[in-house]
């Protein structure tokens, strides 16, 4: 197992400029139903510290599936559609998924959305001959497994203009991402839930001073 990678993402909030390139890249790479505003990743544009003018900050917050080590979405999935690869990537098999949305309810990170029959119809029009979806299902970020398998980075990471998104292997001690996680600079979200997320964030607040 030591040779099997364990994929993870680190997001540096200090350099995310909220350009939304990752959203666009992901949507086109993975053919998500943009016509219904459904995305595998979002970049929130948040106003924080809103009580006074001196406090106010603008924060861009990218989010996606955390590819949890202990994914509640998987344990509730009755069909086995949601499954985890050895490399840590959590996937949904649209051939198996019946769309009960238990996983949507179970995911603490709001990472999943529906692909409906209407979306399939729209997708055929939108992506034409290259549209690859054939079945309605629940969908979410796949860590671009199809790219990672070919040795590429996920589409959102590849294009991230701020290099805010970094992708790496936690099992490789020389990997930059692994180092950031190990030193504790990058922290997961809502770790207390025991989900074991594999997306880690570098805070833009603790770091600045």
């Amino acid at each position: 197992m030591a040779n099997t990678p364990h994929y993870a993402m680190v997001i540096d909030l200090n350099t995310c400029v909220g350009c939304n390139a990752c959203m666009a890249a992901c949507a086109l790479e993975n053919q998500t139903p943009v016509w219904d505003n459904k995305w595998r990743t979002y970049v929130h544009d948040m106003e924080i510290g809103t009580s006074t003018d001196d406090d106010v900050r603008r924060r861009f917050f990218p989010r996606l599936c955390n590819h949890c080590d202990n994914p509640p979405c998987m344990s509730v999935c009755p069909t086995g559609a949601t499954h985890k690869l050895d490399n840590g990537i959590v996937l949904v098999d649209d051939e198996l998924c019946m769309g009960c949305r238990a996983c949507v309810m179970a995911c603490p990170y709001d990472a999943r959305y529906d692909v409906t029959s209407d979306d399939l119809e729209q997708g055929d029009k939108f992506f034409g001959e290259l549209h690859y979806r054939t079945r309605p299902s629940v969908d979410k970020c796949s860590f671009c497994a199809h790219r990672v398998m070919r040795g590429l980075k996920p589409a959102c990471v590849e294009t991230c203009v701020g290099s805010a998104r970094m992708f790496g292997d936690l099992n490789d001690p020389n990997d930059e991402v692994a180092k950031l996680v190990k030193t504790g600079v990058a922290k997961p979200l809502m770790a207390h839930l025991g989900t074991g997320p594999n997306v880690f964030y570098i805070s833009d607040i603790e770091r600045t001073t």
Partner: protein
Amino acid sequence: MAWKFPKLSRRTFLKTTGASAAGLSLLKANTLFSKQQPEKLLNVDKEEVSYTICNFCSSLCNVKVTSRTRNGVKRVEKLDGNPHSTLNRGKMCARGQAGVRQTYDKDRFKKPLIRVEGSKRGEWKFREVSWEEAWQYIDNKVNKPKNGEKIQPWEWTLIGGWTSCIFYMSWSVPFAVANGIPNIVASPMQHCVTTGHLGTDSVTGTFNVHDEILPDYDNAKYILYVGNNSSIGGVSTCRVVRFTQAIKNGAKVVVLDPRISETASKADEWIPIRPGTDLDFCLAMLREMLEKKYYDAEFLRVRTNMPFLVYKDDAGQWQLVKDSEGRPAVVWEGTSDIHILPAYTNYNRTDINGKTFCPSLYAPADLKVPAGLAGEGRPVLTVLQAQFEEIKHCTPEWAEKTTGIPADTIRRISTEFATSRPAIIDPGWHGARFGNIMMTRRVQAMIQVLNGGIDKEGGWILSGEFHHKLAAQVEAKKAGRDDVGAPMATKVGMDFALFVVNAFSSEKTFSHGHPGWAWAYSKQQRAEGKQGVALPVLADEGMKESVEGKVKWKGKPYLTRALFVNAANPVRHYYPDTYWKDMMKNDNLELVIALDVLPSDTTPYADVILPHSTYLERDEPTFYANGVNQDLAVTTRYAAIEPLYDSEEIPDVLLKLTEIISGKDGAFDKFAGMIEALTGLPAAATKAEWERLKAAGQKSPFSKACRKVGLIETAKKLLTTPEHLDKTLREKGVYHEEDWHKIIEEYGVPHKLPTTTASGRIEFFSSLFDMLRSQGFTAPNFSVLATPIAAECREDKTMDQALDPDEFYFAYGKVPTVSYASTNSNNPVLAAINTWKKDIYTGVWIHPDRAAKLGIKSGDKIKLKNSLSGQEAEGHVYVTRKVRSDTLFLHSAFGVENPQLTHSYAMGGTATNKLIPHNVEPVVAGFRSEEFTIRIAKA
């Protein structure tokens, strides 16, 4: 109990069963572990990669295009940043990523359109026609008009957007000159390039389009951004990659902006400055740095005109001390000895007699102009001293009043900036906004020069292409040659700018004796005692008057009767919308042609609409320098797919128009000959290729011929074979020539080469404005030294006086997901993001304290009214603390009117072109697009 009925699929589950086969396959025992999705995506017959250049902003990113074929159908699937490019470093912004959807936009023009007879311009009544019919229609309008008088060359006006400007300048300008058309309006100029850059360039002597300076954020320790966002974090990929690297390297970032922009959100310090007062901030900085001697004295002494001696004339104007041959004078450090320096050089330590000495930045107290020099007997100062005199009153306390920034902060920033070298002050790209913007840019350049940060790691780097052309130009100058070759391919900096000015302002350029109407109008204005615009370069000033028959030339009306809109959208991009609508609705304008890919807000006013192919469908006819890259490289576009529709290429369209305007006979030689004369592309070779392709029945043969010959010519220049160049570009998308470190080592400006200012030095005392002053332009905008110019947002009120409760200063900016106010807001991917972020992106930003007082909250509909011009527009409120309380901010991308752009139209938003009047500054007719206040009321 607010749940709605669950959204059930409109299709019944039975219909899902294209699925029935799949449904059965589910019964297979192994389906529980089928896990097929990742492979499904890649289940295609063929995958191909090609390279192109992004089409959505002046970042000009290099793009890798992945096309896939399935069931015999080839489509572009995905765009990525070109990983081989040092320009955008393999990255691309959302607009670039989504660019593929322009090609597949269902609203695209698919065939030529002619406005239905009897309809009015603006009504959108068009019928699809063949190209032949469209050309026939145009020919009739030009050569057989109802009034019997053919439309004359000078009665044409061309308007181009940045697409045509950057990619087709080498065709558009020769086309104009060959056909005797002296009128070109180019959309990036008044808003952007001339207004923004000329100020900077008058100091540094560059004059390129957006690549005039390429700050090296990678190596900077301190970066001060002044009113820029979309050229950085909001977003220009080529720059944001360097900007975020700077953050990762630990550079300190300070941003001056009235609101928290994307860039400001990443800064260590956001300085919420009052709109229109950046000049005051910068002047206070300049003053601080001069007073405290926070500068690189050696650099100023040797490479700039700071040590030049000046005096005040009777009119109280600063004048250079010059000898009879116009050469500048300086004083030897620690003495009163005055030396004459060569007129054009980049080195002040050797005088005309070959003597080496040390020029002083300070003249002794009682020094007078010696006999034999201009200004004889008058007290002299150095330029540095005079500059300080000029702005002595511009203290941080003085600036605090207008900027709203505490004096201590201004002082601190000045010190930090001066003591953290390498430091960058970044002027951004989008000029205009205020009458004082050009002066602001001048002062910023001066501040950068004080630190010595020109062509130096961590400072401003000048473009690779600029250096190479400059070297050749300087070489030629030394050898006493005037010209180095085809002017458009060889002239750089101020020489290029002045070449363009001369070509279109002079009545001698064309045999018909007409200069551009803009120049005629300027002269007319000045004859009437009005101010007039000094350099209306490619500007629209006077166009409306020309359409209305109010411009006279040699006693006769100088009419504009035909308009060719080439990849431009003036109704949205110029101010106000009515200026252009009224013009285009005017019957004097007999023909309006639009060449576009999508139905912009301008196209409803056309008589003929010609469909252009989109960037993924075309091999560009030429090879380009690598845009805003510091490195020197060559790149071009390769078509990824065949054109989807019956579209045409720009060179072929211009050739056809040449046949119509100048007659079919000899049209090719006329046009191609001018292309050769101006750009160097050999006409004979192009003709041979063109004829061959035409005979072979190829589509767009001229464009293809130019491409072919261009490849050979470019390869020659690069000392390689066309095959090698083509192969490299096909495999990598860029042909890397030289690393920028090497370029500045060899050709660094002003270290190694004099620049293109009149003196060859970096100029604090501006020779450009000295020249304009001598032509009688005396407004403070033309001051030879940096000087304050107050923004005039209200009548008879200064910027520090209180506003009325419903009144706000105005600021706008670009949104990261839309280019300009372009048709790419129609892109469904971008439109979806914009919808999701609708409040922030399309709302009018108002501070909560003001909103509370006015009783408005987020989402409320409001009316906005320009308090000076009375123009009105609508909007909805986004209450946020991210904006100064005296300022109202909005993104200028929205408010599309043409329902043919289905997504953009549905987006709504406030149209800035309805709020901004036609009010321009006097140097280059830059729009004063924020110089007013806005009053708001609940709608």
